[in-house]
């Protein structure tokens, strides 16, 4: 499924990286420990987190996840959004908790 369809279905707000919305989403991973995400997230997964700092973009680029959902109404830092635009990494905001996003994404993809 295309990321832009996931965004629409889950009502996510595109905060940055709009150019990356045509990427595929094949699964998801939820985590706030960057080493854990680095080791376990896979290419084309959607990453759910409550981290809003710019190192999130570096991890997203290196793991080639399709995008990052910053959950729980967390406000990503301005530097995060700038870096995400530069790297074409979609940063998606939502008031939903990571649990709720994961549940809805799972239902959508399976």
């Amino acid at each position, binding site marked *: 499924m295309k990321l832009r369809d996931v965004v629409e279905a889950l009502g996510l707000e595109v905060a940055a990286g709009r150019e990356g919305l045509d990427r595929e989403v094949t699964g998801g991973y939820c985590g*706030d*420990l*960057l*080493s*854990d995400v*680095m*080791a376990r997230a*896979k*290419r084309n997964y959607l990453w759910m*987190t409550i*981290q809003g*700092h*710019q*190192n999130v*973009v*570096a*991890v997203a*680029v*290196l*793991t080639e996840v399709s995008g990052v959902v910053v959950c729980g109404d967390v406000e990503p830092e301005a*530097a995060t959004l700038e870096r995400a635009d530069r790297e074409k990494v979609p940063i998606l905001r939502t008031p939903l908790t990571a649990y709720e996003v994961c549940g809805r994404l799972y239902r959508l993809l399976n």
Partner: protein
Amino acid sequence: MADTTDDRTSDVKPVLTLSFDIQGRDFKASGEASHRIKRTLEQVGLDWSVIRRAAVVLYEAEMNIVIHATRGVLKAEISPSRLTIVAEDEGPGIPDIELAMQEGYSTAPEEIKLMGFGAGMGLPNIKEHADSLEIETEVGKGTRLVAVIDVPEGGAESQA
């Protein structure tokens, strides 16, 4: 796990060497060096499984310098049969490597842990994703880490 790096670094000359300076505590630029090396690995045409493992090793090694050291260098030596990643830093060194290799053990300060670093997974992650890992360290001086990832013949091996 394969054998040690001693003979591995000497018998194969790197075709391409990349080197980046890393500043301690520079969280703004962190990940950039790993990203640039990863891009080169893609351009060279290495297999995705090798690149994926290299990305983990590069990022963890880079972040170890950013979190713990004053400054350092992240290097990648690419040869047809192996990728050697070297992270060398001036910093506090590691007093007890065995302890540092234990998952969950971390000496990172609290404010860094809040950013999602310092979960004590860095070195275990490197060990898991490399074919061999060697660490030389001197307390009060610094650390040199050498991780080798074997490149499958024809670069055709594929795994997630």
